[in-house]
């Protein structure tokens, strides 16, 4: 297990360096002077000089990268071209909204996928299995932003049950947060739920036909015990990975949904920063989400290796 951990951490360190290289390269790809472009018609020579010096763009490329890497390691992601505020503070202010939406979406995905996936596998080939497979196919294919608009159209505009947009922190007013997170969470969670349904279905199917299930039955164990202790327990182990990957994906995948629901998270910040050509904020958000993505995957791998020791041994 220790060797597995060390290997996994080493691999992650290499990928992290690659991630910083890609994020650093983003600003270098801007055609022209990024600071000048960001200032647009609000050009002021003094502000321009200050921002350019603060961004380090006047230094040699290699020096810029190592400076960027060093600063990033200490939590300094530069300053916003638009407001002059530290990027790290801007990101931290938006992170709770995105995290709360991602977790709520994962709960929705779990509520959809576990019953549907298990039911579908246990009734393979029957009408209800076909219905579940059709639903999951629809869930994967529906554009999330369209689904968001349709949900607003039905539940806000037509029925008036839920607010169409806006955000209230869960610490401020949990009920109001719930009312406002419901539609975006259903929007984001449906696609993830559809993907997870497919994984759970195939995992349960595989477990149903496995040797250990046959052995458990041949011992004369009641079907209920075989199902709960031997089939579902084993079948749901790989779902840890899928759930983790989905959570990591949700963090970065909510950009468009945050725009639809005016949800003030990282996605909305990226969208606003793109319009304002605020490159340090875009870089910072991309880096933060990629790092979170890697850490979630690392935790998932460790949990998975703990649950299934064969992974660490292999």
């Amino acid at each position, binding site marked *: 297990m220790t060797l597995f951990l060390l290997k996994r951490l080493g691999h992650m360190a290499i990928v992290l360096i690659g991630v910083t290289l890609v994020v650093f390269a983003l600003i270098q790809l801007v055609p022209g002077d990024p600071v000048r472009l960001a200032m647009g018609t609000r050009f002021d020579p003094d502000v321009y000089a200050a921002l350019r010096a603060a961004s380090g763009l006047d230094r040699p490329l290699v020096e810029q990268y190592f400076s960027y890497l060093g600063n990033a390691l200490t939590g300094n992601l530069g300053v916003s071209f638009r407001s002059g505020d530290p990027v790290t503070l801007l990101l931290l202010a938006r992170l709770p909204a995105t995290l709360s939406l991602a977790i709520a979406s994962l709960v929705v995905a779990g509520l959809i996928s576990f019953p549907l996936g298990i039911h579908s596998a246990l009734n393979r080939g029957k009408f209800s299995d076909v219905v579940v497979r059709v639903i999951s196919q629809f869930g994967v294919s529906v554009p999330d932003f369209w689904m968001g*608009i349709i949900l607003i159209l039905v539940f806000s505009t037509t029925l008036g049950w839920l607010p169409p947009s806006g955000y209230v922190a869960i610490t401020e007013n949990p009920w109001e947060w719930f009312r406002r997170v419901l539609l975006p969470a259903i929007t984001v969670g449906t696609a993830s739920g559809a993907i997870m349904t497919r994984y759970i279905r195939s995992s349960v199917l595989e477990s149903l036909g496995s040797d250990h299930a046959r052995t458990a039955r041949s011992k004369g164990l009641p079907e209920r015990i075989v199902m709960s202790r031997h089939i579902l327990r084993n079948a749901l182990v790989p779902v840890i990975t899928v759930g983790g990957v989905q959570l990591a994906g949700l963090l970065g995948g909510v950009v468009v949904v945050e725009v639809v629901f005016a949800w003030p998270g990282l996605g909305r910040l990226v969208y606003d920063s793109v319009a304002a050509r605020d490159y340090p904020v875009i870089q910072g958000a991309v880096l933060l989400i990629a790092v979170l993505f890697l850490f979630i995957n690392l935790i998932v791998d460790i949990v998975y290796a703990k649950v299934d020791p064969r992974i660490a041994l292999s």
Partner: protein
Amino acid sequence: MSAAQVTADTAAVTGSAPLWRRSLKALLASPVVWFCLVVLGTVLLCAVFGEQIAPQSANETDVSRAFTPPGPDAWMGTDDLGRDVFSRVVLSAAPTLQVSVTSVGIALVVGVTLGLLAGYYRGWVDVVVMRVVDVMFAFPVMLLAIAIVAVLGAGLTTAIIAIGVVYTPIFARVTRASVLSVREEPFIKAAKSLGARDSRIIFTHVLPNVSAPIIVQTSLSFAFAILSEAALSFLGLGVQPPDPSWGRMLFDAKSFLNQGWWLSVFPGAAIFITVLAFNLIGDALRDVLDPKTMTKERA
């Protein structure tokens, strides 16, 4: 015996030609596949003959007809400027297909080439390619695409580049995984012992034998590329106004949810049904091309 004969003999032994024909037959026997072909054929027709099919041009405005509900005069209604929604939905098929086909083409060519080289040569080529792939996988697809478009500037070309770049790693990974098993096959060793060049072995012997998962991935990637293009256009980063696009139509419709449900329903339905068709075809292809299924068929 030439390398070509080795391939022909291998094909004869494994029965790959009849298998492909059987796969195609199995594919066309499914009503779902026919439904998908009809949908995709219609989208293709709209993309090629959109100007002829659409009753009006995409930007023909008539404010007196604004927010006309769907009816005989305007099948899908009109928008806030009195533009015909049906015409705009039809004319949006061309840029959508242009972006998805070109971007998936880029991802396919670059990703498959990298996967073939990494899987065939192993060693440092494999290490470098796979580490780059790992790094690319660390970024959520949509976020990276948005970041690329943000730095290069919004537009059709940059959307193509962005979507092409973000879907390249998956092709590299899928191809490499298949190449790793194929490179140990006796017919590859036979071709090597006959002195065939590496490029010939890779493109004539390895590539055809790893094509099944690549075909499946291509179909699924078309679905994702259409969703990505629509999302980028929705955010104002893809197709630029006044050119119509399904994503941009949805963004505009968001401001008029009270005035006309049709403004958001029809463009979204167009994206949904096209993506659904590509996903279903991808699944059907996987079913008929999956090695497990093929083994069962052979047995």
